[in-house]
């Protein structure tokens, strides 16, 4: 009797671990599928010949805002200065910063024509946080670019993911942004930063 009991306990234990691993793998697969679908959407829009450049840009901007957590990135980029500015200034910064970041990175997506994205790996690095490793094949320049995405699952639906960092060839978007914003805040005051952001956003949209 004791032998059967031990046997059942062992089976339950192994079964639990296997189920945990399977759900872990499923969550990672969802993350990989999310990035794959997103990349395909972007490439399809860029390849569309019946859309004007302005229309494409507007759609890509919308996709960027919906799928990248610009507010989180803005806060992260501000770092130690976040608590040194007032809530009104925080809100003003995030609004202007969102336009700046979109203007800085979305034009790069327009060069995705003819490119292919291959998912290399997807892992849950922390609870609900996933690292999706991809390989972007740039057929025009005969290059393969490693692009990793850090994404977080914010809900229970399949597509409740949001990107909070893009790491291209080892270069992290948020680390770069944090260095940029911190350096600017160290050398200027808050208004100086806002004026610079507005000026750069205006010049990148030309």
């Amino acid at each position, binding site marked *: 009797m004791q032998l059967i009991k031990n046997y059942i306990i062992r089976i339950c234990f192994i079964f639990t671990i296997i189920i945990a691993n399977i759900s872990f793998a499923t969550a990672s697969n969802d993350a990989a599928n999310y990035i794959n679908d997103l990349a395909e959407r972007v490439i399809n829009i860029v390849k569309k010949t019946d859309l004007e450049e302005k229309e494409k840009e507007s759609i890509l901007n919308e996709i960027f805002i919906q799928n990248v957590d610009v507010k989180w990135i803005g806060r992260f980029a501000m770092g130690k200065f976040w608590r040194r500015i007032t809530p009104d200034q925080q809100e003003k910064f995030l609004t202007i910063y969102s336009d700046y970041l979109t203007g800085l990175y979305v034009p790069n997506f327009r060069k995705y024509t003819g490119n292919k994205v291959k998912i290399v790996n997807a*892992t849950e690095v922390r609870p609900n946080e996933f*690292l999706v490793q991809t390989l972007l094949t740039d057929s025009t*320049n005969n290059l393969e670019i490693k692009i990793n995405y850090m994404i977080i699952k914010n809900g229970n639906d399949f597509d409740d993911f949001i990107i909070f960092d893009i790491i291209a060839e080892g270069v992290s978007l948020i680390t770069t942004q944090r260095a940029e914003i911190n*350096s600017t805040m160290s050398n200027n005051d808050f208004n100086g930063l806002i004026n610079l952001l507005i000026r750069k956003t205006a010049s990148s949209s030309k």
Partner: protein
Amino acid sequence: MIIRFLQILFFFIIASSKAMATTVPSYSYSEMYMYDNQDDNNECDHNVSDDLIPDPFYIINKNIFNINLLIDNAFISPATEIYIFVVPAPARNRVGNFMSNLGEPINFFNLLLQGKFKQANISLTRFTTNTVLGCLGVLDVASKVNLPYKGEDFGQTLAQYKAPTGPYIVAPILGPTSLRDLTGKVVDFFIDPFKYAMKRSERNAINVAWLLHKRAGAKNVIKTIKSSIDPYETAKVLYIQNRVSLIND
């Protein structure tokens, strides 16, 4: 049966640990507050990139950086645009192949020094294959037969031997580098066999073509740097992150 289950379980654990072995960023989405506090007790508002690489020559570096930007805007960028316009993408790929092939002896030497003998062998095989079968390296035949290109320089070799990065340096024309990588560039320059095999005029022509080709490849990155609110800081942080990635690769 249980042994079979344990084997499957072992496989899962190994697979998971291999996946985790890739570089995982240290920051966490939900723990942002800890980043807010990290410099709170620090009276001096130092820059984030100073944590990645020291910049004791900031003033000199920034002046050289600004001069480089002026030179780029006035000469290199327009010349690159002409290069891109005149030489179509497939032909530019051939130029890139040719230049990469000329760099294979340096890759081979550095891979040997790093003890990466298998990669060194691939580098040597690539060089002979592409030189003989690929019209002196214009065609990358080796990549088609699963001999991938891996660029290595003496800066990376020094890093392998735990040589410190040293201070950040902005070199005239060449741009962002570090003391270690600048030393590496000098060593690579002297170990390059083509330096001794070619005439000075041929070397100069190749250097100009290489500069234009590299600049064309980095066009989007340089545009992003110029569009950023602090181009100097952006260039520095992009450079150091990319170097760390290449060294860890």
